């Protein structure tokens, strides 16, 4: 319908042709006829314009004009490939990082769980801040109390974690298994992908042993084999039939391979478990009753908990300050990742701003060079809208290319960020890439394009500053110069904040790695050789003694010992410690018994791990079950409870009901403190028992003079010879265990250093670009200065000091802004820390050094200005 340019032209041509033809037919001379027809017609251009004017539509016209401008922009940018490459790469990095992190944030923090009515699902936690225990979990009697008294929750689901040695899928090995009551899957609102899940009929001590496989285990280890349903597994001493496979869902509270009913775990059926109010090992979930709110449930749970504490004061020592909390399951699952992801998002945003401001600098410099062209157009009557559109065309092309690169980069980046975030939330493992990534990238690019088009100042048509500008030389106006500097300064300021933050993380990591753990970490190999806890049978003891002896005969082995606890790797698995009492020690009035960690070790344990004895003796093979009960204590125990005397030969006993009747044990030795729970050592009250008196332990430590990992195959062979079904797992030196524990810190430091590095690079390019531009625009000034006697050296210094000033102002602004931001953030987030002096000074030094380097090239160019050429420029 809407005629295009050709259409209009042809219509007019047709008119003229008919008119000419008619005149010729009337007998006019062809040439004269042509002239007469044209004369009669009037202005072809005006007529055509008013014909087109009839069809004008504001938006279509603008789009058409913009398309025109984009074509012009493509041609003119083709001549500035260096600029285009810099801008596109810078924007691409900024857009890619943001789009990737946004995808992960959305999937980890915002996506609903697969659980049915997931917003009604809550997680209940008991904690004991007084003992430093964030999660004490619940005991069976406690859960029974909640079930009988709470009405705002329609049902409770319970989940406890236990290690089984599993036979049935390949080699015998240890698996982490969930043990759940019959209501668990119904409360969680999960469905099977194969077979069925567990229900009320599977609950209780008389049911048959059944287990459900988790989706990840089924797909990763069993290749999604549909024939698993019906297979029988051996779990420790019991057996269980696989009845189904769970749908993919967030494994919480623990990522297990199988989930079984209580009958598979003899421990769960024992009296300790069923009646011990302080035997806490079960996690608790609840579903809000119809109509009940989270607040109401919280209030009721708190009331019931308070009543329980009043009724059973012995199970809730005042010193423990036990508390109860209830959170929506999704919040609970995403909480550890929330802060880190939000910080990451903010960091990516800052990098994007730095990238944009750097690009703005480049565009601004380019616009100044084009001022002549724009001034001519303005003088010829181009509206400011048309000029803006020209600039918008260019920035759209640049940002569009940046967005394409960004989206291409974002796909692999999502995988990297997701793997990183998976350390904080299992949900990150399921992050997907979808079209919203494109939208985010396009949105960011459009925002950047509009921003960039509005940054350069337009030449005013009222006061065109002479056509001399059209000669092509750039001259810096004070206003433009100030803008360039403001952008450079903001880049420096933001980079400084990122560098200081990254510096803080790196400093913390270095401090963690430099910490002396008190162990010989390099030459000790730790292996899991699991056994049933508390097994003091002769066979079990013999097995371990035989194993220690035979491994000790291997070449290069300097010592072998058995323990219960691989430092750091097993952190938390023994709970927060147990109360004990000491002969002849009465605490101040009202003071509770002290708590200590319980560890079970074999003779030689301390020597193998490099922990020196302070006084007394090590355990020996003579410390048997039937001989005198003995213990070794850590230095902290000795100093705290026997401040004035020797601890050796004094007696102590556990007071926790778990240990039954208190049995006094004689202290035979004191060892230096080691902290096997925390990589950064704190004072640790630890009481060691000889394994013949407390049961075998399941962890093997081998001290070797050679390569520790070379010992793994012979050690495994020896153990298999002694017991073919014995799992042997997770061989690692203590050094590597520590590295694994520190991995999140290391990755944090690495990721933020990466961001800070990118920011630094962009900022350096920015400063260098501003100075280079300032130098090139002032070539004439420099020429004049040299001509009237200034030395090149002074020009060099003046440019360098210009750079130094930008950096100095940027660092001060960054420090001020960063401090203000940290204060602001601290009011919304927990754990906001300010970097120490060292990272701040380090960041400042790095920035200053980089900026001086960046200034050198433009400065050198200023000092080499050729006087004659410079003066001839105008």
């Amino acid at each position, binding site marked *: 319908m809407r*005629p295009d340019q050709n259409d209009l032209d042809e219509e007019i041509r*047709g*008119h003229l042709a*008919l008119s000419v033809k008619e005149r010729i037919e009337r007998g006019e001379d062809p040439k004269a006829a042509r002239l007469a027809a044209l004369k009669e*017609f*009037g202005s072809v251009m*005006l007529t055509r314009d*008013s014909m087109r004017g009839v069809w004008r539509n504001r938006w279509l016209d603008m789009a058409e004009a913009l398309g025109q401008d984009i074509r012009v922009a493509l041609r003119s940018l083709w001549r500035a490939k260096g600029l285009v490459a810099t801008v596109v790469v810078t924007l691409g990095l900024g857009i890619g990082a943001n789009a990737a992190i946004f995808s992960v944030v959305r999937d980890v923090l915002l996506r609903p769980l697969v659980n049915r009515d997931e917003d009604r699902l809550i997680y209940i936690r008991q904690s004991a801040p007084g003992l430093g225990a964030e999660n004490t979990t619940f005991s069976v009697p406690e859960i029974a109390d909640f079930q009988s008294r709470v009405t705002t929750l329609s049902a409770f689901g319970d989940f406890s974690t236990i290690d089984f040695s599993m036979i049935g899928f390949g080699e015998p090995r240890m698996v982490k298994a969930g043990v759940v009551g019959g209501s668990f899957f119904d409360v969680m609102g999960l469905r099977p992908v194969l077979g069925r899940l567990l229900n009320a009929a599977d609950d209780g001590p008389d049911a048959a042993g059944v287990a459900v496989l988790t989706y990840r285990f089924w797909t990763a280890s069993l290749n999604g084999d549909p024939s698993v349903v019906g297979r029988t597994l051996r779990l420790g001493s019991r057996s269980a039939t696989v009845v189904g496979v769970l749908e993919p869902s967030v494994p919480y509270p623990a990522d297990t391979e199988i989930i079984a009913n209580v009958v598979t775990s003899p421990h769960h059926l024992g009296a300790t478990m069923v009646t011990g109010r302080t035997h806490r090992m079960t996690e608790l979930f609840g579903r809000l009753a119809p109509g009940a709110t989270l607040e109401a449930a919280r209030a009721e749970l708190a009331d019931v908990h308070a009543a329980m504490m009043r009724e059973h004061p012995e199970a809730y020592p005042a010193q423990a300050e036990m508390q109860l909390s209830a959170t929506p399951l999704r919040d609970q699952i995403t909480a550890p990742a929330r802060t880190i992801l939000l910080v990451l998002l903010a960091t990516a945003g800052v990098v994007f701003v730095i990238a944009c401001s750097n690009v703005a600098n480049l565009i601004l410099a380019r616009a100044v060079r084009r001022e002549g062209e724009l001034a001519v157009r303005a003088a010829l009557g181009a509206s400011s809208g048309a000029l803006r559109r020209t600039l918008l065309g260019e920035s759209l092309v640049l940002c569009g290319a940046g967005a394409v690169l960004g989206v291409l980069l974002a796909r692999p980046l999502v995988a990297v960020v997701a793997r990183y975030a998976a350390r904080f939330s299992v949900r990150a493992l399921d992050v997907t890439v979808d079209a919203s990534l494109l939208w985010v990238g396009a949105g960011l690019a459009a925002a950047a394009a509009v921003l960039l088009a509005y940054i350069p100042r337009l030449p005013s048509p009222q006061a065109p500053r002479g056509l001399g500008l059209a000669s092509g030389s750039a001259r810096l106006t004070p206003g433009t110069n100030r803008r360039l500097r403001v952008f450079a300064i903001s880049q420096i300021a933001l980079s400084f904040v990122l560098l200081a933050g990254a510096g803080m993380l790196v400093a913390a990591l270095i401090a963690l790695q430099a910490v002396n753990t008190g162990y010989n970490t390099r030459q000790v190999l730790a292996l899991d050789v699991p056994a049933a806890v508390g097994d003091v049978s002769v066979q079990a003891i013999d097995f371990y003694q035989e194993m220690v002896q035979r491994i000790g005969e291997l070449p290069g082995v300097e010592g072998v010992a058995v323990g219960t606890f691989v430092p750091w790797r097993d952190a938390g698995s023994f709970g927060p410690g147990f109360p004990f009492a000491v002969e002849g020690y009465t605490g101040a009035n009202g003071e509770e018994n002290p708590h200590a960690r319980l560890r079970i070790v074999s003779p030689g344990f301390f020597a193998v791990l490099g922990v020196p004895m302070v006084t007394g003796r090590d355990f020996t093979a003579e410390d048997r079950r039937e001989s005198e009960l003995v213990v070794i204590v850590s230095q902290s125990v000795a100093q705290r409870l026997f401040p004035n005397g020797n601890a050796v030969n004094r007696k102590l006993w556990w007071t926790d009901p778990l240990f039954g009747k208190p049995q006094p044990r004689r202290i035979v030795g004191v060892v230096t403190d080691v902290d096997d729970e925390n990589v950064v050592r704190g004072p640790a009250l630890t009481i060691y028992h000889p394994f013949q008196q407390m049961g075998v332990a399941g962890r093997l430590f081998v001290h070797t003079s050679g390569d520790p990992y070379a010992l793994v195959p012979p050690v495994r062979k020896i153990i298999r010879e002694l017991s073919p079904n014995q799992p042997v797992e997770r061989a690692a030196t203590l050094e590597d265990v520590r590295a694994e524990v520190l991995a999140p810190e290391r990755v944090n430091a690495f990721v933020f250093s990466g961001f800070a590095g990118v920011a630094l690079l962009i900022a350096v390019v920015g400063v260098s670009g501003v100075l280079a531009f300032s130098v090139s625009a002032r070539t004439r000034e420099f020429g004049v200065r040299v001509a009237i006697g200034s030395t090149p050296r002074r020009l060099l210094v003046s440019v360098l000091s210009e750079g130094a000033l930008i950096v100095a102002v940027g660092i001060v602004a960054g420090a001020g802004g960063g401090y203000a931001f940290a204060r602001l953030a601290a009011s919304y987030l927990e754990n906001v820390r300010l970097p120490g002096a060292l990272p701040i000074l380090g960041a400042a030094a790095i920035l200053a050094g980089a900026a001086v380097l960046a200034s050198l090239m433009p400065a050198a160019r200023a000092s080499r200005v050729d006087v004659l050429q410079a003066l001839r420029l105008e």
Partner: protein
Amino acid sequence: MAKKPDDRRLELLQGTLDMLILRTLQWGPQHGHGIGQAIRAQSDDLLKVETGSLYPALHRLEKRGWLKSEWDVSEANQRAKYYRLTATGKTQLSRERDRWSQLVNAIGRIMNPAPAGKE
């Protein structure tokens, strides 16, 4: 109304061009040049439509839906754009014709009862 003979041509009244175009097309499709010629011939050369007004007017009427256009080859073997009256165009023509006769009537009543002298 005595004028010099070479200046006897009349200026088109504001708003009448559309009506004249519609009226002209009532005899059948025609191209722009033909419409201009027809108006001129029908008015005994008294009315001459400027191309600068005619063509924008044609496009305006087409945009309103009163005309439809299509390319065709003219009797003189020249490709030209032919305009044709649409159904709504016909309604519009009768509406404009009514308004025009009312206007002529009204002005006539003012001008005729009191025959004035020369201006």
